[in-house]
Every structure is written in structure tokens, then in C-alpha cells.
């Protein structure tokens, strides 16, 4: 399955073409968000991360489906 991953702020990926903040990721069916984090090599403790799966707050053990949109964030407060 493929998920639409949005990486926020310091989680963006450095590539030869610059920082990448959005990518399509192939994952095995039934993958959890935690598995995606491991796959992406994100080292920040999930306790300090916030996930929005299709616009709703999600937890690391939640299972994703094909075509899901997921935002991975280091949450902040406003300005």
C-alpha cells in the first residue's frame, strides 16, 4: 500500500534537491504508524511527536490503509 506522508519542520528530509516535506511511501499492508516511523528512521521519541491521520489525531499503534494521508509533527504552540 502507499501512504501520503507529510513531514513537518525539523522532520523534513535532506535530499540533493533540497529539503523534502512530502513523499509517497510504500508500506506492507496493515502497517502501523510506528512501523512507518521506523521505516523513515525518525529518531525522536514518539512521545514528543504528534500524528494526524486523515486529519485526525492518531497514535503510533494505529494501522494505516492504502491512500491514507499522514502528518508527522513535532508539536508546537501558536504565536
Amino acid at each position, binding site marked *: 500500500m502507499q501512504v501520503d506522508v507529510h513531514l513537518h*519542520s*525539523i522532520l523534513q528530509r535532506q535530499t540533493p534537491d533540497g529539503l523534502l516535506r512530502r513523499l509517497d511511501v510504500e508500506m506492507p499492508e496493515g502497517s502501523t504508524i510506528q512501523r512507518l516511523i521506523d521505516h523513515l528512521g525518525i529518531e*525522536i521519541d514518539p512521545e514528543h511527536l504528534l500524528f*494526524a491521520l486523515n486529519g*485526525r*489525531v492518531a497514535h503510533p499503534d494505529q494501522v494505516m490503509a492504502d491512500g491514507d494521508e499522514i502528518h508527522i509533527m513535532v508539536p508546537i504552540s501558536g504565536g
Partner: protein
Amino acid sequence: MKTWRVNAREQTLTQEAVPETWERLGGRGLIARILVDEVNAKCDPLGQENKLIYAPGLLVGHRLSSCDRISIGGKSPLTGGVKESNGGGRTGLQLTHLGIKALIIEDQPAENGTWLLHLSKDDASFVKADNLAGKGVYEVAPILLEEYGKHVAISLIGPGGEMFLTGAGITNIDKDGVPSRICARGGLGAVMGKKGLKAIVIDSSGGEKPPIANSKEFKAAQKVYNKALMEHPQIKVYAEYGTAGMVRMCHGFGGLPTRDFTSGDFEGAEDISGETMREVLLERGGESETTHACMAGCTIQCSNIYADEDGKTIVSPLEYENIGLLGSNLGISDLDAIARLNWALNDMALDTIEIGAALGVAASAGEMEFGDGERALELVEEIRKGTPLGQALGNGAVATGRLLDVERIPAVKGQAMSAYDGRAIKGTGVTYATSPQGADHTCGLTIRAKIDHLDPKVQVENSRTSQIKMAAYDTLGVCAMGSFGFGKVPETIPALLHARYGWEVGEDILMEIGQEVLSLEREFNRMAGFTAADDRMPKWTTEEPLPPHDAVFDVSPEDLDSVFNW
């Protein structure tokens, strides 16, 4: 520490001992206490009876990172209720170095005119300042720094406050002397304008830091707090992206105000994001800064300097709320256009949230096309010119709706909502509805909570806890960005209070302070005539679905009425 009472009619200063019931309060809490004790809640906020109060927070004075904020308050001419608005910069620090626990400005001048209040060691004097009348803050601040010395703190109003507009704030200069740290909300600039004051210059030369009961203990707690702050992952986000890092976050939850709060999904969100802003500033260079401190000693440095293509400063800082209300809320996806709007409003010392929401209402009424940055700037200049539409815009979203015959207004208790749509982030909607201050995210933002923001049943507790904590942090003088450091090491709060004041306080001190403050604020509002019916989101938010989730605000009135049951 003393209370300095200044009479704007007699132009006199009285220094008084601090009453016992005020001693354990500072900042926002002390303002609420003084309003309850001394101000007729039913008075005309722009009349003689209202008081303008400056109160540094309890931890202000020692350059503790993110803990030197100034609270300014009075009865709000915008909401008709209690008002406290806080900001960074130099003002809080220097007031404490003069030994000022609270500065209370009373009455109004007998004759029209413009004055400057100069505070120095054991002295306050009024200086005629007609030469500064009508000038923007960016012109006035350098004049005053030249005249009174680069080291002074300055708190001043712009043309907005001089025109007594209820969207006017009071600006403080930052550590670099730039007038950018605005206590924006609730129309306090108009209250200052009615006191005949263009500026307050604070020269703490010869003063000293407020006393510390046990400096060894203070330093030990400071070290633990600083370490928690520096090790927190958020600090890197704030330093590199500033609060603008919120754009994609709020958009990700479908709550980014778009085209006068008609959608939470803005097609230009990526273009106005903190990530894009950082790329633009790094590429432009020159005077651009992605990382900048507003207060001396701040280790977070969430501020920035936004420069144009030639590397010349347009505005500093460019923050999330401004991007939300002046950008997506107006359908504008051009950061340069947003920055120019921001500068123009800053120069008049107007609240960018209030005026941004008012411009959205004006756009819905056909006064501008959504997305037209040049037209938005023309409308902002109408405020400076004092045209009827300009006056309505300067008086905020509700006044603009009244002039243009629009009933659908994004405001609670007369104050415009911040850049989180309360239908998608319902806990923040609860805060908007019930905060004694009116709609204001700084009174209890909930977007970071790991709960379903769309579920109406789980929002009240979240908003309650957040409102209590924010009321307490605002009383301590702690910036919202510093609060996550204290969140990791909460034991440092009682430790710092014990070290500074010798108070024996328990681990629940934050909740105790916050509850006391909210109770005082609600008491003032009750005396002013507010009831439970005022603790509601506008009816249209309960009926009009917000894309992309088609969410309405559906937290029940019973649940809203339970927010302050503790």
C-alpha cells in the same frame, strides 16, 4: 517592591506598599485582583474610571529564559470585560529593576494633548510630546531611544491608540530596540490613548534586580529548567521555524482559517508555511534572520526578521497568527504581501488578529476580493486615514460587521478568534467560548493535545486544564514557549518561587494560581454584567459545516457551563 500609582490628570506619582492580598500575585493575576478591588466593572472603559495597569509576572527580573514578560490590563473597550494582554521585550524586566510590582495609571488629562511618561529611580514625570502625535511606532521608537538612551525600555501606542480604536494595542521595544512586542488584544492601546499617553519610557539606571531570598537555590532550579528547555525537541522547531511552524500543523487538522473562516483547508498553505518562510529567508540573506530573541536571556529565540528580495527588513517578527489571519483568512498566499500588511498594522500598533478577522468580514461583504494583497493594504491604510470604513476596521471584526451589515462574525465576547477554527480544534473552541478574556488562543490552546479534536465529548477537560495553566503562566510572567520547559520539570516552579520569595508552596501551585486568577476574572465579568449566555461560540459555528471535515461546533451548552467547575 511597591505599587506606583500615577494620576494622568494631576500628573503625580504615589508610591505605596503592596497590600497583603496582592503579594502572591503578579502579571495577569495581579491585574485581575486590582480590577476587582479598584475598578467599577460597569465603568466606561474609555472613561475616567478605568485604569491602565502594568504588572510584571512573579518570576520577572532575573533574565530567566522566557520569563520576563509584561502583562498590561484594564477593562477592555473591545469586550467590556476583564483584559490582560502580555508581551516580551524589555518592559517587564526594567519595571522590576525600578522596584515596581504594579504601575497603575489613573484618570485622564483635563485637556486634550499628548504626553510621555518617564519613569526612573523613584521618580515619574510627564513630558509634553505633541511632536510625536500621529506618528507610527517605527518612527517614534528611534526618536525616543536617541533622546533617552539606547538602554531604556519603551512601551508605546501608535495612531490606532491615539484614535481610540478598540483594535489598538500597546507595543514594547525588544532587546534590539525594535517596537515589535505588542500587547495586542482587547483595545488597551485605546485606554492608553485616553490617558493622554503616547509612550512610557522606563529608565532603570541605578535600580537593581528584585531581591532573591536564596540565590543558590534559585540558580539550581534555573539550571534544571534551562536544561529541560534546551533538551526539548520543540526548541529546535521554534528556533528554526518560529511559530510559523504551526501553519502546516493547523492545516493538517483542517483548522487553518481560510477566507473569513469558511474553510479549514487552504490551497496555498504550503506557500505560507514556516518551512517555506525559512527557505525564503535563508535564500534572501541580508537582514533576514530565521532565529531571533525578543527578550534578553531567551534560549528559545522563536522570533525572526523577514526581509524582502533585496535583503531589507519588511517586518520582524512574522508570526503564525499574522500569517493565519492576514494570509489564509484573506485568501492570500504571498508571504511578502502578508509581511507588508503586518508591518502597516504594527506601525499603527493594531492587533493583527482583530484587524485580520475584520478584513475577512470586509472581504465577505465585497470590500475586497479574497487573495488581493494590494487591496487589503489599501483597506489597512484607510484605518490610518480615519475614514468610516477604516474606523470600523480599526475597531475590529464586530464593528466592521455592524457597518457592513454582516451578522456572521468570528468573535466571542466581541473579540475576534485567533488562527485556529474552533470547529476543527474544538478544545480551542471551548476556550474561545468560555475564556473571560474573549476569543483568544493564548488563554488555552489545545491543538498539541493527543485527543481527537473533532470529538465534542473530550474537549472540556482539555480546555479547562489548559486555561488554568495559561492563567498561571501569565501570572508568573512565563512565555507560552517556556511553559513546555516547566512542563518537563514542574518541580522547578515551586522551587523558583521558594528561592525568590521564601514561599512554602506545594507542587499544585500552578493549578492553584490559575484557578484563583480565572475566578477573579470571572468575578469582574460577572460584576460587568456577563452571564453564561456570553460563554458561547457564535450560533453560525454550530450550524455551518467547516470543510474539509464538515465539522460544526457541537460541544453542548451544559458542557461549556462546566468548564470552571473544579
